[in-house]
Every structure is written in C-alpha cells, then in structure tokens.
C-alpha cells in the first residue's frame, strides 16, 4: 500500500500506470511494411485525382468554348496541373518512398517535420489549389455571362457565393497552418540560439 506522498509523486504516478503487453511482433511489423507501401502508393494515386479532374474539366473547356482567351486560360490550367504532378511527385516513382524514421535529436527531427509540413502546405497551394482555382474561374466567367444574358444572375448568386467562401476558406486555413508552422520554427530558432 502506497502512502499519500508516493500517491502524489508524479513520477510514480506516471511509471505505475497500467500498460498492455506488447502487441507488436516482427511478423506484424513486416505486414505493416507492406501496408505502408500500399498506403503510400494509394496516397500517390489519390493525390492525382484532383489534378486529373482539373485537367479533364479544363480539357472539356478547351473543346467547348470558342473564345481564344478562355481556351488559353483552360490550357494554362491543364499545363499547370500536369506540371504540378511532375514537380509534386518526382522522385516518388517507381518505388514509393515512405517517411524516414528520424535518427537526429528531438529538436532536429521536430524541425524537419515542421519544415516538411510547411513544404507540403506550400506544394498544395501552388500545384493543386492554384490550377483548380484557375479552372473554376475560367468556368465561372462564361457561366456568369450566360446567366446575365438569360436573366438568371440572381439565381446563381447563392451557389457562387458558397463556392467563393469555400475557396477563400481553404486558402485562409492553409495560410494559417503555414503561419503556425513558421511560428513554431521561429520558436525553435530562438531556443537553439539561447542554447548556444
């Protein structure tokens, strides 16, 4: 029976917590390796859905609209999307590269992870979100002019407003994430400077 003092000793409280017997065997780990490879491959393929959709819609736009300006914008969206796939995924094929376990100190690996997240966030905005916004904008312009001609502009406002709010929210949330990641990296810089 513990006395009151040991019951309130945080180190004893921590170390005395119940734990389950180890559940990981080497066989399970090997299965997890295969799962991870399959998951990485699925992730890479899943990441291609949005750019492919953008390219397909923009391709349809090139075929459907006569305006050279609109065609140029749609073509730019296709090129941007395809280039994005190349830059975002180069080095990932044919063999998927799963996350590398860290072997540096806590502060080094934490910084690496923060920088990686910041990079992924920037990559999303540049190569995924950008072409999508361009394609949506290119579709919206003729839709608006059609709506004006047919006197349906008012009916379109709720949908367009929701679309606009969604696009702005995604952009703002990503920027906020990046700001928070940057703040955390700056804090690590400060800690490292103070430690020198």
């Amino acid at each position, binding site marked *: 029976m513990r006395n*009151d003092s040991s019951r309130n000793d945080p180190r004893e409280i921590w170390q005395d917590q119940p*734990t389950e017997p*180890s559940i990981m065997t*080497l066989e399970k780990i090997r299965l997890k390796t295969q799962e991870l490879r399959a998951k990485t491959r699925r992730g890479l393929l899943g990441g291609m859905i949005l750019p492919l959709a953008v390219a397909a819609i923009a391709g349809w736009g090139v075929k459907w609209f006569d305006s050279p300006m609109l065609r140029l914008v749609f073509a730019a969206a296709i090129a941007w999307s395809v280039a994005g796939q190349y830059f975002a995924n180069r080095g990932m094929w044919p063999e998927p590269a799963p996350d590398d*376990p860290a072997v*540096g100190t806590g502060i080094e690996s934490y910084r690496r992870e923060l920088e990686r997240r910041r990079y992924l966030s920037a990559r999303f905005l540049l190569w995924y979100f950008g072409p999508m916004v361009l394609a949506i904008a290119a579709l919206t312009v003729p839709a608006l002019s059609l709506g004006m001609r047919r006197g349906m502009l008012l009916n379109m406002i709720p949908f367009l407003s929701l679309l606009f709010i969604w696009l702005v929210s995604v952009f703002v949330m990503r920027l906020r*994430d990046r700001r928070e990641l940057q703040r955390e990296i700056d804090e690590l810089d400060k800690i490292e400077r103070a430690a020198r």
Partner: protein
Amino acid sequence: MEGTQPISTGAASRDALYRDAAAKYGAALQRLASAYEADPEKRRDLNQDIHFQLWRSFQRYDARCSLRTWVYRVAHHVAASHVLRERKIFSRLVSLEELELLPDNDQGQLVADQRKNLERLSTLIQRLKPLDRQVIISYLEDMDAVSIAEITGLSPGNVAMRIHRIKKILARRFHQGGGHAE
C-alpha cells in the same frame, strides 16, 4: 549522430536490436504514446507506428548513442509527427512557461485515486508543445538532464531550466515537494 554516415545493419541484427528495445522499453513507449494521444484507439495505432518506425530505424543504428537514447529519439519523432498530422493546432498547445502561469482548479488537492491523478498528469502533458512534452516525459521516466539533452538536442543547461519549471508546476499541482526529483 551529426556528420556521420549511418551504418546499414543486417536484417537479423535489426530484428535482434528491435526485440531487445521492445523488451526493455515497451512499457515506456506505451506511456509515451499515452502522453501524445488521448484517444485509446488512436493511441494504440500510434504505439504500433512507434514500434514499426523503431524497427525500421535500426537499419541505421550505429551505436554512437545508447539504445535508450535512440529509442526515445525515434519514439518522440514519430509521436511529434502524429501531433502535427492530427492537426492539433499549436495555438492550443502551451509552453512550460505559459503552463506555469495558468491557474489549476485542482491546485493543492491531495487526490487519493491513482487513476484520477494519472488523468490529471496526462491532461497536463497533452497541453504542452512537443518539445516540452519530450522533456517532461523523459523527466517522468527518471532520466537526468544530460540524457534528456542527448535525446532532445537542447543544451543540458536549457534542460535543467526546463526541469526546474516542470518540478515547480508538478509540485504545485500535485501538492508534492519534488525532493525525489533532485
């Protein structure tokens, strides 16, 4: 490990190292996972991830640091990545300095129930930013400032300062002098 080329160990050696590490630190790794994830299901997944990445990491283990340091470095890295992946917003996490200033409703209460005490302690740890979490978990696992510095990459002086803060916070919240921690 800075400036050194990792040595690729054989599969048998990697398996043996992993078995050794899992036997020695399996329980500590479970505790570590509980400090980073409150949800039991996600915690189990995190614990599995830690074990998996640990096994993978032994391919590059070159024995330049102790097995314990290596295990904790990898585990903390996986767990910190988990916190980032789960999009736990940083602004909701606090540093030790901020935690020191925050009021505690249970302050000074002697709680007889071990489980409740553990809940309070876990909640407190889960409010901390990843780097401070690494320090407090290592401290709770009875490591000294030098070992914690080796794991986190902070200077021993900086770790000592953080431990001092941790002791003050824990003493205040658990009505405990902290003499044991010296």
